[in-house]
């Protein structure tokens, strides 16, 4: 016999209750769901991104009518419940009565409206649901001025969204600083400054006297008698639990519907959950405790023991670019001490409040990467005496020289909470990964982690990476590594705009959290610096991967491979003789012809490198850079020299390009090819730059790939002359050098910036093309030289520092 369950309100809390219930006992319940809003359940926390245009409504739906239907839930959407009759155990809706055995009230909350004159004028709206959001979007479409009353979490998200949509926004706040419940004055100041930079006007200690207007809102009058024009007034003053139905039904009600720890109201067959409840004097407005309640209620309904407890919660603001975090209690008080860190230039403020060697509160602005770690210390009541001196610098500075960016996540115990909204621990995520959820979307779908407010997305991705290793590709908007909070793109931009010309400057000015970076960021920063400041910055070999430091490719047994350059794939009998001699002299076990039209000597001992290079140098050969993020090969066909189909001198052009480009460092390796006719024997259409000669000139195409991905090049331009083909190639390579993320091949970079963007600079804008070529030439005046010749003079660098085996033998 199915139990009749009626649920009033289809919000985030009740949605979660029904999910738990229908997952565990799909056949035990006959459920009817009422919702005053004419739609199902969506993620209300994400309304702000919808308002700002960063997301659409469809993206934030969590349970639509189909979902409920699939679970056998009868939906009465758009129908408000008008009464509960406890004697007959029925609820009364416009479409008729429905009997219940168990009833869940999940009516949520209603926005609080300050009782000033004009509050009912059209153009005055609250910020609570999708209709409010849509009303704001519509109003913003007409432009004009908006006044947001109260600078709390919701009000500021509304203000930022309206501002992004082009309105002239003023925020009125009664208190002395913004978000006074979550922030202290200093953090409030930084937040205000950031919002003002976006053109939002902030008025603190501003009390609203009236909303003026004839047929609709036109202005807001302040107690100070100041008048602010307003086409739209958003009241984001606060919320109060929606308790009317419960009060009318005679249930015990305080500020909200009173419940016990099992979510039961004063009537044992009626339960309440979400923002409408009052638990021992606590009201709830954030999602994490609501989900806890939902779980408890589902268990109570199924007859399992469960109890709801109030936990500390942390706050983050969802305004892109305003990074703040607050948790715990940060009021000043007797016996409490502060640790404060400020970096005025970067707009960073961090304050930790300690009591009895425990962390009890944290407020952070500008850099909140360590927020969850601090929050964990607060929740667990960890004794921080030992790490007090470095506490404020976060987990990276605790416990010795921990520099691996993922080590903090790797070290977390399975029960460490990753997603606060949904109460998902690391262990659950790891289990989900083991069960086949190997990307963020799958983790969201199977565990709900990061599916609500999304601020733990980075952590979830780190868990994925720690668990999956190299097979997990981090999304691109991540910081370079754990040493900093900036993306590759940000670091590149700042190196240029702030004219930073040394790694030390980058680490200092951009707030590196480690002493001198790590194996991930060092090579990237080294490249960015030498690409942007070829004359001023000195390449740092110690920031290079071994292959580029030793100018040879390390093999799995620690030996190296040596590949001399063969310009355009052309060699001579003398060169081949010298290569053969070298192979004999240094006992090279494997000699291989490469796909790039040259010869690879594999298995050379590290200590022999300077000598084999010297031998090859003497025969006129130089490094083939087969190991570098730089120009590798220019593959050619024989073109007009020998081929009866050749239309141009493809070999000659290939050699010219290789002689021009060799030695240059690039974000990733660069391979070229030139084919003498459209038969394309040099396979030019899968290269970073491929040129196909035709009767009328040269088809220059770019952004091909034939590795992890297979992709045909896209046409950049058709050049009439060989010189123009060379110019286009050089300008393209330089644009790639100046803009791409380190380790993005050209095709990945072009996919990000768009081929049109590249064409504008390389093809259309002749001045820019000229500038790119000049910048490349300047860089090449430093780097177009043979590293082997240089290193062959530093024989000792390749030898052991000392050999104690000899001394021991004496």
């Amino acid at each position, binding site marked *: 016999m199915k139990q009749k369950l009626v649920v009033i309100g289809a919000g985030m809390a009740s949605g979660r209750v029904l999910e738990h219930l229908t997952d565990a006992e799909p056949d035990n319940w006959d459920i009817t769901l009422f919702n005053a809003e004419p739609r199902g359940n969506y993620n209300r926390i994400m309304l702000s991104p919808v308002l700002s245009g960063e997301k659409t409504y469809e993206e934030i739906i969590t349970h639509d009518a189909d979902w409920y239907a699939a679970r056998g839930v009868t939906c009465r959407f758009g129908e408000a419940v008008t009464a509960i009759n406890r004697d007959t155990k029925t609820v009364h809706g416009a479409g008729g009565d429905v009997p219940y055995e168990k009833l869940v009230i999940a009516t949520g909350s209603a926005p609080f409206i300050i009782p000033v004159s004009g509050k009912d004028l059209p153009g005055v709206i609250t910020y609570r649901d999708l209709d409010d959001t849509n009303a704001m979007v519509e109003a913003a479409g007409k432009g004009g001025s908006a006044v947001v009353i109260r600078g709390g979490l919701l009000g500021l998200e509304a203000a930022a969204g309206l501002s992004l949509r082009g309105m002239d926004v003023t925020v009125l706040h009664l208190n002395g600083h913004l978000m006074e419940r979550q922030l202290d004055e200093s953090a409030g100041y930084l937040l205000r400054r950031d919002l003002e930079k976006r053109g939002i006007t902030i008025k603190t200690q501003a009390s609203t006297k009236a909303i003026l207007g004839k047929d609709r809102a036109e202005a807001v009058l302040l107690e100070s008698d100041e008048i602010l024009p307003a086409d739209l007034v958003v009241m984001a003053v606060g919320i109060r639990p929606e308790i009317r139905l419960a009060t009318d039904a005679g249930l015990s009600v305080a500020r909200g519907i009173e419940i016990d720890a099992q979510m039961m109201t004063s009537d044992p067959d009626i339960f309440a959950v979400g923002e409408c409840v009052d638990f021992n004097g606590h009201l709830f407005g954030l999602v994490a405790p609501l989900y806890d309640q939902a779980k408890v209620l589902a268990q109570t309904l199924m007859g399992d023991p469960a109890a709801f407890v109030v936990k500390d919660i942390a706050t983050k603001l969802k305004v892109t670019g305003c990074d703040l975090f607050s948790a715990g209690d940060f009021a000043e008080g007797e016996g409490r001490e502060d640790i404060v860190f400020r970096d005025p230039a970067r707009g960073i403020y961090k304050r930790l409040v300690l009591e009895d060697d425990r962390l009890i509160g944290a407020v952070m602005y500008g850099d909140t990467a360590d927020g969850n770690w601090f929050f964990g210390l607060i929740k667990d009541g960890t004794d921080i005496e030992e790490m007090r001196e470095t506490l404020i610098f976060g987990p990276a500075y605790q416990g*010795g*020289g*921990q*520099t*691996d960016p*993922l*080590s903090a996540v*790797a070290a977390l115990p399975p029960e460490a909470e990753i997603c606060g909204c949904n109460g998902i621990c690391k262990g659950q995520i790891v289990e989900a990964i083991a069960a086949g959820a190997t990307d963020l979307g799958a983790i969201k779908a199977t565990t709900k982690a990061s599916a609500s407010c999304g601020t733990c997305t980075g952590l979830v991705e780190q868990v994925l990476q*720690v668990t999956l*290793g190299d097979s997990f590709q981090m999304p691109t908007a991540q910081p370079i590594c754990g040493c900093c909070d900036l993306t590759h793109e940000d670091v590149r931009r700042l190196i240029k705009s702030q004219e930073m010309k040394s790694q030390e400057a980058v680490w200092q000015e951009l707030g590196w959290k*480690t*002493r*001198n*970076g*790590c*194996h991930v960021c*060092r*090579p990237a920063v080294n490249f960015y610096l030498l690409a942007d400041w070829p004359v001023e910055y000195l390449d740092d*070999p*110690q*920031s*290079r*991967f*071994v292959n580029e*430091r*030793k100018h040879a490719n*390390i093999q*799995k*047994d*620690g030996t190296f491979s040596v590949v001399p350059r063969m310009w355009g794939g052309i060699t001579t009998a003398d060169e081949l003789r010298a290569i053969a001699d070298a192979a004999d002299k240094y006992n090279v076990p494997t000699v291989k012809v490469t796909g790039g039209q040259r010869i690879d000597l594999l298995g050379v001992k*590290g200590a022999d490198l300077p000598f084999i290079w010297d031998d090859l140098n003497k025969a006129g050969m130089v490094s083939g850079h087969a190991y570098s993020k730089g120009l590798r090969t220019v593959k050619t066909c024989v073109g007009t020299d020998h081929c009866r189909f050749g239309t141009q001198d493809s070999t000659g052009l290939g050699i010219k390009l290789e002689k021009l480009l060799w030695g240059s460092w690039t974000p990733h390796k660069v391979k070229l090819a030139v084919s003498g006719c459209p038969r394309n024997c040099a396979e030019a259409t899968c290269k970073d730059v491929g040129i196909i000669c035709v009767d009328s000139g040269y088809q220059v195409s770019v952004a091909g790939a034939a590795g992890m991905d297979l992709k045909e090049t896209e046409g950049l331009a058709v050049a009439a002359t060989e010189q123009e083909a060379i110019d286009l190639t050089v300008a393209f390579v330089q644009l790639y050098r100046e803009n791409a993320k380190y380790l993005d091949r050209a095709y990945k970079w072009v996919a990000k910036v768009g081929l049109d963007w590249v064409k504008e600079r390389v093809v259309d804008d002749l001045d820019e093309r000229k500038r790119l070529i000049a910048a490349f030439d300047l860089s090449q005046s430093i780097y177009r030289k043979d590293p082997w010749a240089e290193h062959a003079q530093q024989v*000792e*660098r390749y030898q*052991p*520092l*000392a*050999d*104690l*085996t000899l*001394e*021991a033998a004496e």
Partner: protein
Amino acid sequence: MSWIDIGAIDEVPLRGARVLKTNVGCVAVFRTGPDEVFAVSDTCPHKGGPLSDGIVHGQSVTCPLHNWVFDLNTGQAQGADAGHIATYPVRVDAGRIQIDGSVLRQRSVA
């Protein structure tokens, strides 16, 4: 302790390493700061990568083969990887690097 002179500090590049051949195998001598040196086994316990060819950062090195990171103080692998490399007492005296020969000998016996 019996300190053996193995070379001048300047012979090891800053944030770099050089190899020391011993009877217990190759030892990597790292220079993490102007006067800060460490000596550890040159062989990564994962796939035998030459740690002296890795990128040196802070007081750690990243193996050039598969990016295992080792703390040069303890020899412990960092992050998710589990492994350990031998560490050897080493010091700088008047610009010269010295290594404790007794430890190298003990280990060769053991």
